[in-house]
């Protein structure tokens, strides 16, 4: 069965591009632009990995990551955070994320990090 990936980003264009790319690679993909909807999506979709943007309008990716990692039912989900802010890698790892990728990234690097965390 295909691995399930949830992508959370406030930018619709990025969501669409990532979603199309991952689908073409054979993953099952769900997306949301609203950080607060992450928890509902996680509960319903049960993803194996979450690609989470760090700064989103409406919510803070770091807080979402912390909360998911504190919850016993969701803490095993791999979380890869992404951001265009320099220095955001430290923030991500501090909030318990499993991986980090800086925007703008190369498609092959994104696929590589996803594969790595889904092992």
């Amino acid at each position, binding site marked *: 069965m295909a691995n399930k990936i949830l992508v959370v980003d*406030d930018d619709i*264009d990025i969501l669409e591009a990532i979603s199309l*790319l991952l689908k073409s690679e054979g993953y099952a993909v769900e997306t949301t632009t609203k950080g607060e909807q992450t928890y509902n999506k996680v509960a319903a979709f049960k993803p194996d990995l979450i690609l989470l943007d760090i700064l989103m309008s*409406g919510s803070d990716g770091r807080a979402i990551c912390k909360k998911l990692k504190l919850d016993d039912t969701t803490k095993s989900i791999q979380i890869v955070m992404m951001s*265009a802010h320099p220095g955001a890698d430290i923030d991500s790892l501090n909030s318990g994320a499993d991986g980090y990728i800086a925007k703008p990234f190369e498609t092959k690097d994104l696929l590589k990090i996803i594969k790595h965390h889904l092992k």
Partner: protein
Amino acid sequence: MKKVFKYLNPLSHLGDRYYSWIFPFVANLVLCICSEVYAYSIAKNPMAVGVYIIFLNVAFIIYFAFREGIVGGFISTGVTIAYYFYIIYTRHYSGSQYTSGIDTTIILAILYFIIAFIIGTLKQQIDRLIDIQSDERKRLEAIIQQLPTGVIITDNTGTVTHINKQINKILGLKIPIGFKIGTDNITKVKINGDAIDPTQASTIYALTKGKSITGRDLLFERKDGTLAYLQVSSAPITNKKHKIIAAASIITDITQQKELERQKDDFLSMASHELKTPITSLKMFIDLQDKQIIEKDAKKVKYFNERIRDQANRLKELTNDLLDVSRIQTGKLAFNKEAFDIAEIVTDTVEGLQATTKRHKIEVESELKQIVQGDRYRIYQVLVNLLSNAIKYSPQGEKIIVRVKKIKQNVVVSVQDFGIGIEKSQQDKIFDRLYQVTDPEEKTFPGLGLGLYISKEIIERHKGKLWVESAKGKGSTFYFSLPITSKKGNI
């Protein structure tokens, strides 16, 4: 009485040099009359005045020459010599033997004039030096007071001799002249967060070490608790013998400069973030397009091309905004001038923006045709900005109302949303460069925070106004007015 003493003091200056001849004249005359009264009425001997009068006369000449300058000395001498001739004349006719003194008197006269001239010249030189010194002091004082930076000058003990009013403003306290700067009263100064060793404080350092400190940045805590970034320079002042006689310190408040630097850094970081976002999707759409080399799905190729074009447009808009800000700051924002119907542009813009939102219904309430003069594209830019803001800041709202009204000689366009609203305290700041509204949970919104700054500049350059009415949680209404011109007007 005080005036008399003041006058008698040879070093005091009465200031009115025009009458400087009166006092020596009257005083010497009184001396002569007293001598005559003494000789004829008290001593009853015409010769009683004797040679002792010469000492008194010389004393008077020296005194008045020093008091009133050459004029005073010459007047004294003149009256004295006239009196001597009067004595020779009166004593000659009284049959005395004191008639042979004409040649002596002439020698005395020459001597007196020489004394008066030397003392008078000396006095004038001293006066000139005092004047120069006082002028210098006034000039220095004026320069110090006019400097935009704070200046403190102390003597070699650290006692303040000169200080300007800027110091009080910068430090938030009043330092009086005579205040002694010592190691015990330098406490609230920090360099990079650490309290400074008082012996290293710049004025004290300059006085004790005899070395200058240039451009030292420090953080100063004012009495009221506010913090200021200061830049301090101090230098010792030495005399000819290389002995330290004073120290001059210059203090500049660089808080605003620091704040601008911070804003600039924030701006660059924000700009790079905003530019990276479309670049990220652009790269991915290109990679998706690459796959079509094999799949050869014409529909998908067309779609990805569109998406690539969208991202390129986003980048273009962002860079345009950044360029506009740069142009505004250098005063080079250019405008075209033409007459156009504002209502038509409003309708077109609303149509365009309606396509970008499914949640909101944008309604237009417009009064007929309203012709205004200006740059059609720039006004369109303002409308796009206000409408995108209305959409962005009313994520839960369903309606946006755009109104076009004629009020007196102006057309007023308003954009009303029912979103998060803006607190009263933030309402002025939102037109500043880089300012963005945050909501109660410190949520952030994407964007550079440049839109309103650019819009305000555009509207003001059209001789209009841009303002907002808003209440926290109840939405905002942005208004802009443009003058209605029947003739061609200038922007």
